[in-house]
């Protein structure tokens, strides 16, 4: 174990590099050919398959699995990419246990769904390994479209637009493209620089220019884009982080979980990432789980997730919660932060209040508990930086769109986390980006949509 792990406070290098490498390896090693064939054989090729319906991008799952089982793996990859150009990333990050695999008839029959996500990875990995490209650009339409945000929504939109022969420019504020694929998703779900490799694979179709370090609201406005382009797609995700509303949240040692994860994702040396000995993560979603698990993997001794509601209400799936507990994270429910305890301006602990549901409303019970901590991560949800909206109608703090991704402003579409009504998943962002592209294409080419 080494004694570094016992260092008080926030410190780097709690674990030796060899252990870190092991901890951050691929969560699910890829299926080999035999495993893939055995798994593919389990698919019943259902009629009007529930899995396909449950997939936000509606991949023809029975067909691609059948293609795998007949040795036509590239055909399978094409079937996947036809619907979901980021099928490789989605195979790694989708909470399949609440999507396709939840409704697999095998789940119904025997509690063991076909491993759809793993099979999807098997097929898409092979296509990418061989750099098999399935899409070509239609003849140049002369139309130019601006996409703001190079996350899954923006990339999916740009790719679909490019297949239709439009020219796309993507603007992104950060200095790497990929959005949360690059900065957010847990490291062990997307090892070996997969996000950038996928981006390269997808943009190989051509007709897509990416301008990095270009922020909407700072370097240009929506009006600027409207003047220069035939259509605009906004896929800026959610940059802002909600406030904790606990006393003392400015203390040294209180940080945003997303920033911690972004640093982790960008580092080339995990042993340089600083982490506390005792960590509290506040929240109940995927971000909370990812921050907690990765804190543990970095060598934090005690990691506790505190969530103000019950197990059932947690946004993180059953699988994610189990993953956290097997990695040694403690998950506590019905606790909300009240006061950050500090000494000399540094975090020493957190006072929490017990909560309960009264008449359908969450209420503090007055009783408190105190947990020692030297680092606190906030993972209580992100929000749209509303100055990105620039005249677009909002609902619930996010951009309002119709079923085709049209915003309230003529000529501007939006999709992904920044729009209302989604479920904050990579796969949903892809679906919305793709569908908005179809709508833009229809509008530009004179179809009434």
């Amino acid at each position, binding site marked *: 174990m080494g004694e570094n792990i016992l260092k008080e406070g926030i410190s780097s290098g709690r674990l030796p590099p060899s252990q870190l490498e092991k901890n951050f390896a691929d969560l699910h090693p890829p299926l080999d050919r035999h495993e893939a064939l055995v798994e593919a054989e389990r698919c019943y090729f259902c009629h009007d398959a529930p899995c396909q319906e449950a997939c936000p991008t509606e991949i023809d799952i029975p067909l691609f699995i059948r293609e795998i089982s007949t040795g*036509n793996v590239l055909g399978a990859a094409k079937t996947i990419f036809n619907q979901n150009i980021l099928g490789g990333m989605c195979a790694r990050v989708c909470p399949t246990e609440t999507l396709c695999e939840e409704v697999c008839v095998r789940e119904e029959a025997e509690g063991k769904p076909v491993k759809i996500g793993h099979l999807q990875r098997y097929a898409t990995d092979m296509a990418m390994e061989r750099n098999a490209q399935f899409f070509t650009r239609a003849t140049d339409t002369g139309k130019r479209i601006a996409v703001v945000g190079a996350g899954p929504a923006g990339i999916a939109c740009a790719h679909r637009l490019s297949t239709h022969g439009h020219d796309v420019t993507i603007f992104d504020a950060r200095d790497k493209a990929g959005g949360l694929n690059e900065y957010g998703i847990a490291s062990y779900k997307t090892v070996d620089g997969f996000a950038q490799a996928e981006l390269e694979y997808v943009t190989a179709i051509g007709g897509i220019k990416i301008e990095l370090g270009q922020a909407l609201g700072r370097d240009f406005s929506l009006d600027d884009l409207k003047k220069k382009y035939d259509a605009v797609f906004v896929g800026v995700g959610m940059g802002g982080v909600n406030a904790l509303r606990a006393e003392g949240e400015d203390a040294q040692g209180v940080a945003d979980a997303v920033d911690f994860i972004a640093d982790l994702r960008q580092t080339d040396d995990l042993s340089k990432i600083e982490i506390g000995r005792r960590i509290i993560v506040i929240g109940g979603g995927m971000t909370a789980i990812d921050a907690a698990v990765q804190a543990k993997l970095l060598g934090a001794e005690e990691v506790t997730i505190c969530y103000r509601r019950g197990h059932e209400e947690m946004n993180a799936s059953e699988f994610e919660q189990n993953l956290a507990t097997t990695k040694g994270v403690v998950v506590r429910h019905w606790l909300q932060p009240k006061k950050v305890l500090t000494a000399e301006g540094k975090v020493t602990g957190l006072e929490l209040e017990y909560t309960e549901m009264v008449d359908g409303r969450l209420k503090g019970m007055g009783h408190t508990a105190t947990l020692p901590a030297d680092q606190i991560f906030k993972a209580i949800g992100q929000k749209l930086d509303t100055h990105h909206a620039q005249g677009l109608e909002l609902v619930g703090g996010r951009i309002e769109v119709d079923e085709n991704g049209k915003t309230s402003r003529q000529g501007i579409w939006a999709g992904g986390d920044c729009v209302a009504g989604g479920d904050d998943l990579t796969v949903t962002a892809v679906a919305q980006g793709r569908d908005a592209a179809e709508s833009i294409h229809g509008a530009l080419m004179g179809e009434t949509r």
Partner: protein
Amino acid sequence: MADLTNNFVGIKSPNPFWLASAPPTDKAYNVTRAFKAGWGGVMWKTLGEDGPPVVNVNGPRYGAIWGGDRRLLGMNNIELITDRELQVNLREIKQIKKDWPDRAVVVSLMVPCEEDAWKAILPVVEETGADGIELNFGCPHGMSERGMGSAVGQVPEYIEMVTRWCKANTSMPVIVKLTPNITDIRYPARAAHKGGADAVSLINTINSIVSVDLESFSPNPSIDGKGSHGGYCGPAVKPIALNMVAEIARDPETAGLPISGIGGITTWRDAAEFMALGSGNVQVCTAVMTYGFKIVEEMISGLSNWMDEEGYTSIDQFVGKAVPKVSDWQYLNLNHITKAKINQDLCIKCGRCHIACEDTSHQAIMAQKDGKRHFEVMNDECVGCNLCVLVCPIEDCIVMEALEPGVIDERTGKVVEKDYANWTTHPNNPAAAKEPAE
């Protein structure tokens, strides 16, 4: 992308995947769905004479055998030809051909063995605009008791005669569908050829009883306590069908006679194998009855990707490519000596290879080494039979390796010859010639 278009005896279709004459092609409703799904053509469910249609049993008509996990491996049926009015079928065929001009619509026929019966039906079929006819000489149950179906298909003289009548009375291409319920498939194929058939199609179903209920002692499917033999089809019959297709393809007497391959075809791979053995296209029945019409999407993408990978741009570039590789046993090279080899890294030590070889073959796999569980081939006993490879649960864990010429075969103590030598010249063959006969 590879070109999948098919030209079979002048009948053009966008791909070589046709539906065999059976319930999936019994009605315009089904056929429309099939064409929408992407099938290249259909053999309409067999029509009979004008007049009151045949009747089917009203109890279960199908039986099956399953593999593990209830995967359907073989099916049998006791269904007859279409039980719908001739006029209704003809009307629908005409409409379908009009609606789907680019797809193949061939009409399967079975009428009594009298020239007048054929003379009566051929013009009304031709009038629909159908692309051709298929003579059902294969149905093994019910119709055969009435002197039709396999009762005709089992007598080469009848096949030739009826084929000739059809050729004389219609200008449509005539495809003769053969029954596998014979001893040597080449004879009925030759008869069809002599009668002037444009092509043969095979196989129809095989006489079978799929199972017996051990409480009622009735064969399945059981109709009120009794069953009759039915026609067997599905994945289980594919090897039989492949052999029959190959036998016809390499028979000098029927050389060049187009073949439409049928029997257990479920995936693009099955289809490609039939085509490699000489089938100009393929027909499918049980697979769509198991999984629905949508499987054709997999067949199209699979065949097309395989052709791209192998560099074939059109189907005729590989049709028949395996035919020259099918040989009589006596011409196989006896100097080609192989030994099984177990990959110790892949071996999971189940012992199946050992017990198969020990109990039933040549005692060539040890089960222990240095007191430990260990499976290894003993080259001085291995005859290279391949049994261990087949029973091993791990793919590629046991492989057959050929001995290089010049090394010593530890089993016989003889040096492996580099020259080809077969049974025709083998010293043990009493009829051996001096020189190899090929």
